[in-house]
């Protein structure tokens, strides 16, 4: 059974009571061990792969060397035939015949190394996929665990500070009330600001020459002139 299924089975099974761990520490340990094992397998397979690939390269070099040697001796055989030395040509041909089984043996070895390397590459890929899957599951388990622990820390904090967790609707009402108070204050401040500015009623009245007027130089002069004339 996949771990995810186990977690959700536990959910349904009523392991949702506060403080009750959904996934016990033991299954986290098991999963962590599986991840470690998979990582070890990958490391070992990669090491083996390096060895096999090195051997494959050696084999390739050996094949090239033997092929070159055969080519070389074939050249010599042609030369001997050209010189009419049939006996030497046969001797050279025997040499070539002795190299050929070595070449075919080396080719067999090489293809067996190649096949082995392919298998190891496949294994590494498969194990890496498995490792990724285990890691993803471990993240899920650990996150479930963290969130539960965080939630119980928060609940404990409420209990310890003697504050009561309010119901959602009460909380919302209080937040809305605070928002309203804040908006009202803002509005009042705006009105106060308006009262101090040129757009206030007093300013408008003054501009229109209504209400109490402050004395200006011209009004003072008018007054003096009126007195003088009197």
């Amino acid at each position: 059974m996949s771990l995810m299924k186990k977690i959700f089975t536990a959910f349904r099974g009523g392991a949702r009571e506060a403080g009750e761990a959904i996934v016990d520490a033991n299954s986290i340990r098991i999963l962590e061990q599986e991840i470690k094992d998979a990582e070890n397998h990958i490391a070992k397979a990669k090491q083996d792969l390096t060895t096999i690939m090195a051997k494959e390269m050696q084999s390739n070099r050996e094949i090239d060397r033997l092929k070159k040697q055969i080519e070389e001796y074939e050249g010599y055989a042609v030369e001997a035939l050209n010189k009419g030395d049939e006996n030497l040509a046969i001797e050279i041909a025997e040499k070539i015949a002795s190299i050929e089984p070595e070449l075919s043996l080396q080719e067999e070895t090489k293809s067996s190394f190649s096949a082995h390397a392919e298998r190891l590459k496949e294994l590494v890929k498969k194990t890496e996929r498995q490792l990724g899957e285990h890691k993803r599951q471990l993240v899920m388990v650990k996150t479930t665990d963290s969130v539960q622990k965080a939630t119980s820390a928060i609940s404990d904090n409420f209990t310890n500070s003697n504050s009561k967790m309010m119901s959602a609707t009460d909380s919302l009402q209080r937040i809305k009330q605070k928002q309203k108070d804040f908006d009202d204050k803002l509005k009042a401040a705006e009105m106060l600001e308006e009262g101090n500015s040129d757009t206030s009623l007093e300013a408008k009245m003054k501009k229109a020459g209504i209400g109490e007027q402050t004395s200006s130089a011209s009004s003072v002069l008018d007054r003096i002139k009126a007195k003088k004339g009197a």
Partner: protein
Amino acid sequence: MKIKQIAKALEELNSDAREGFDFEYQIIPGEEEVLQISLQNREEIPVYLTETDTQLLCISYLWDESEIKTESKTDMVEMMLDMNIPMPLSSFSRIGDKYAVFGALSLNSSAEDIAHEIVTLSDNAIDAIDVMSDFLK
């Protein structure tokens, strides 16, 4: 970043990055350290930030099982499913008997991104309670 560093980075942000809200911080000790962030005038529904191996989780708790009108539970759960994708940055969840909205962030998130997540989560929490208050006692 550790929880304390996150709190410090958030504190150093200017008011614009916090979208005009003042944040108040409290570290809740425990096996899993949690940072409580209270937004000004929304102290009743704080945002909790906790760090796991792979992500930063921001959670706001909405209500618990006992607050739900029994006959409305299916409707409520269906509405949560319907709202889950349209709701920006947050998703619904349940932890123990508590319903919650949460958002997950990368461990490499900037303080600005975290602040944006916190404010959005708080908006979503308040909207969710408002929208679903008919299902609650």
